[in-house]
């Protein structure tokens, strides 16, 4: 392959034009200037190519070299991904710190995956076997939590001529040789895959199992299925990041890919600090052992921000191909869209809505469609769930990124600034949020809740909706003028809001609710409503019921009863019901 090389003629921010480069391919990785900054071809006209550069272009001069690599922008997939923290183009930030100190200079070169570390490889195939792309060659215990399954690259197949015996090897050592039609390919424990190309699978399947997040409003009311795509839109201060962190910490996926895309540096620090401390609820191991972090904070180069979501989803797909359930959090997709807009502006493209390029919608679609549950090439089942935070300007959900995102996701957790200013967290608005996954996960939930999940959720949402209507009436006539049954609804709705929907991420007990606890809590509140309604119909006032000492305590059950002791909720409920019956008797 001949190397194509030309000269810079134009520099404008992260966008550089070079001439004399006919033959460069679209999305080819290029080295720009004497410092060999990393860039990607985004437009070609005749022998002039436009390159977006993933590093700061200060000091670049016209006339400096632009050299093609012949390869598209790709990520390295193999052992060493977990517990890693990478920038938008998969450079390891911890290694860069060792190399260059606390600030990131330009032109740093570092391998994505550690070349020296030895991994204990256990082959699962034998010499002479036929292998096809995506099959599992062997395994590596990458972290105590996760077994890394070494895959044949998707585009390779043939007869296994050679496979190394069990032992400790670096990822550069050849572990297998595959021959097809007389040509032999050497396989290592890692391979490269272009980020903009979805990884193949055998068959796409419908989602059916909920992603259990331990967050009550999500699991009970607006569930997401494993392999689904959900958006969390919200203005600043509404808790997008905390919600994303909670999902990364507690959701029952086996692998977490967390992309900090154009967000605050201190937030990534928080993740880096807390994840090694937080424990996986099942195994008790540090959460970091199942996590890959991609950090391209807002002050890092804008085009690498554009690449970071692709880097993240490609890594997520790779773990899906091993047969894992993967959850990917992208915080925030709006910053990614803004990076598209900024680069588009530099390319002098015709803008569509609010300066965003006309291809915004198709790019969003391509990204969210990479979520899904699939039968992988090796016959296992895996899923990639995408949870995308959206940061609409001014909290206005009619702006282009939110509107177009809504077309490609099937769930919408609308964060509400009014709830946030009342410190009602998570500030997910129960009236404007929705989830299309309810029907998919209904079977799973019903089998875990004595068949009652769907009915309970409808009843509870109904009470909350009635509260909203009654509030309008109260605004006109005052609360005292309401009939008693309506007053009771107001009290029960308040109980639901304060005792169920609100959840304190910083409370050691409240931060995670097991499905059983969620079910028991909601059952208790709905049973309380039924019994209190009966009492009200017998002439007892709603305010008398609300003033019962145990009713106030009911709102605090979420913080006082641990997941392992949910039976206490039933005992507590009996106490409440006793008090109501005593009221009736007196």
């Amino acid at each position, binding site marked *: 392959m001949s190397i194509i090389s030309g000269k810079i003629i134009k520099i*404008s921010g992260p966008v550089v034009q070079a001439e004399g480069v006919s033959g460069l391919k679209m999305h080819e990785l290029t080295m720009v200037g004497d410092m060999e900054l990393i860039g990607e071809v985004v437009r070609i006209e005749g022998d002039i190519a436009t390159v977006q550069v993933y590093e700061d272009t*200060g000091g670049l001069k016209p006339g400096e070299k632009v050299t093609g690599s012949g390869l598209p922008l790709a990520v390295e997939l193999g052992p060493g991904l977990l517990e890693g923290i990478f920038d938008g183009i998969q450079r390891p930030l911890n290694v*860069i710190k060792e190399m260059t100190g*606390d600030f990131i200079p330009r032109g740093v070169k570092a391998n994505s995956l550690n070349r020296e570390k030895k991994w204990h490889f256990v082959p699962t195939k034998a010499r002479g076997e036929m292998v096809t792309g995506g099959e599992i060659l062997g395994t590596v215990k990458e972290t105590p939590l996760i077994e890394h399954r070494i895959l044949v690259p998707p585009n390779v197949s043939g007869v296994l001529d050679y496979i190394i015996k069990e032992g400790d090897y670096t990822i550069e050592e050849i572990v297998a040789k595959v021959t097809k039609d007389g040509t032999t390919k050497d396989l290592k424990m890692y391979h490269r895959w272009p980020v903009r190309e979805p990884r193949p699978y055998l068959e796409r399947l419908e989602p059916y199992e909920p992603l259990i997040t331990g967050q009550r409003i999500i699991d009970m009311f607006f569930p997401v299925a494993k392999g689904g795509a959900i958006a969390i839109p919200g203005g600043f*201060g509404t808790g997008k990041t905390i919600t994303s962190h909670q999902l990364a910490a507690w959701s029952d996926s086996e692998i977490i890919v967390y992309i900090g895309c154009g967000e605050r540096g201190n937030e990534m620090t928080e993740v880096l600090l807390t994840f090694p401390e937080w424990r996986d609820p099942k195994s008790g191991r540090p959460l970091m052992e199942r996590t890959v972090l991609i950090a391209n*904070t*807002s002050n890092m180069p804008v085009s690498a921000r554009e690449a970071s979501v692709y880097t993240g989803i490609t890594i997520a797909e790779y773990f899906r191909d091993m047969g894992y359930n993967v959850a990917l959090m992208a915080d925030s997709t709006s910053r990614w869209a803004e990076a598209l807009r900024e680069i588009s502006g530099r390319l002098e493209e015709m803008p569509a809505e609010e300066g965003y390029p006309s291809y915004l919608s198709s790019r969003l679609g391509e990204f969210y469609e990479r979520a899904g549950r699939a039968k992988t090439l090796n016959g296992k089942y895996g899923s990639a769930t995408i949870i995308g935070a959206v940061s609409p300007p*001014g909290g206005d959900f009619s702006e282009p990124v939110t509107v177009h995102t809504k077309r490609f996701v099937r769930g919408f957790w609308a964060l509400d600034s009014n709830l946030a*200013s009342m410190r009602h967290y998570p500030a997910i608005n129960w009236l404007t949020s929705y989830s299309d996954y309810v029907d998919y996960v209904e079977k799973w939930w019903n089998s875990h809740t004595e068949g009652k999940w769907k009915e309970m959720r409808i009843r509870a949402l109904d009470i909350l909706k009635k509260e909203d209507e009654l509030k309008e009436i109260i605004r006109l006539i005052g*609360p005292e003028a309401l009939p008693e049954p309506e007053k009771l609804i107001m009290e029960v709705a308040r109980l639901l809001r304060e005792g169920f929907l609100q959840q304190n991420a910083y409370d050691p007990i409240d931060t995670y609710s097991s499905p059983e606890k969620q079910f028991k809590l909601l059952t208790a509140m709905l049973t309380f409503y039924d019994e209190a309604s009966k009492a009200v119909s017998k002439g007892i006032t709603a305010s008398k019921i609300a003033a019962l000492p145990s009713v106030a305590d009911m709102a605090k059950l979420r913080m006082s009863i641990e997941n392992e002791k949910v039976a206490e909720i039933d005992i507590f409920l009996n106490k409440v019901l006793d008090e109501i019956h005593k009221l009736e008797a007196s």
Partner: protein
Amino acid sequence: MQISMEYRGVAKISGPLIFVEGISNVGYDELVEIKSEDGVVRKGRVLEINRGVAAVEVFEGTSGLSTTKTSVKFLGKPLTIAVSTEMLGRIFNGIGEPMDGGPPPFTEDYRDVNGLPMNPYSRDYPTQFIQTGVSAIDGMDTLVRGQKLPLFSGSGLPHNLIATQIARQATIVGEETGFAVIFVAMGIKHDEASFFKRSFEESGALKNSAIFLNLADDPPVERLVTPRSALTLAEYLAFEQDLHVLVILTDMTNYAEALREISAAREEVPSRKGYPGYLYSDFASIYERAGRIKGRKGSITQMPVLTMPNDDITHPIPDLTGYITEGQIVIDRDLHRRGIYPPINILPSLSRLMKDGIGKGKTREDHAPVASQLYSAYARAQDLRSLSTIIGEEGLTDKDRDYLRFGEDFEKRFLSQRFDENRSLDTTLGLAWKELSLLQESELTRIADKFIKMYYQHP
């Protein structure tokens, strides 16, 4: 060593930009010296290079330049400023040149004003409580070291007063370490600048302060460099000299206006309200220079001030700022009209790093639940206030009337304080419990019983 190139004549002058043709060996973002006919030298920076033409922004403005008799010298290096600890106590213009008539300070190092992005892996998480002595902030929206917490204000509101009060009173309780204030004025009025200078002098804070001034009638291009010069000094003081630096940036709205002006002169595609599409990234390159680094003693805490055009919090300037900063303190016109100082509206205000800076061993164990309860009670009081204007207080329940009384009292006793009143955290929390005790004990659902037993004051 590179030879710097000099060119006679420019092709085009447009607003603050000049275009130089026939250039070679000129780097992007390079520093430029522009000499006009009368021999005065101005500074500028390369904004774009396109097929032998360089677009240069001139910091001092282009007034008086001609296309034929201007000579342009490309210096082959980015804009750097001289930094040193001797800069404390002095006043500079936007590109770090002394403005107080004194000699240039002894230079310890030269630094590129753009800085480099801090590696997220190197950051240390901010957890140290800064006591500002202002109840609304310490109690409800606590500031921590290494945080960036802006004041969202409006024209005619006392944000400057509050910023000065914070700069004067901010301390870490029980710690005597080096503390420096860097005050960055961007496009502010002369009398505002002299107010700051005077109050810094009066309080004796000037000797620990460096002031960077770019006033309303100074060139807008220089305004874009002003915060970067100041933060370059801040990084030097914090990470080389172990000082805790508080940077006050006022007014970011003027900065953004300057950015829009330059963007329009470059004929870029605008996004919202004519601001360039990269406003977010540009803001981030300023705000993200706050923080702490593992293994280094100093820190940079930022308090940007911005005036929301038309008091609109959804305007791109406060909006994009809020997405980058770790919370915001919102100054409210209605409270100001009612004579409450500081008129901080706690409902839309937020400090994201508060949770890690307060609590047992840092402030007090009941701090977080008390703040949370005050929020929800005040939010409810505000709701009821608007309700009672329609249906009258008689239509409310007794409990609701408690909340109304709480709301009034909270504003008058907890929020309000004098400009020179420095409250300790215990005073602030004591006041908070006094307010909460106006409500019935059973209303305090967010506070654990043990704290209620300890602090609740029965009537």
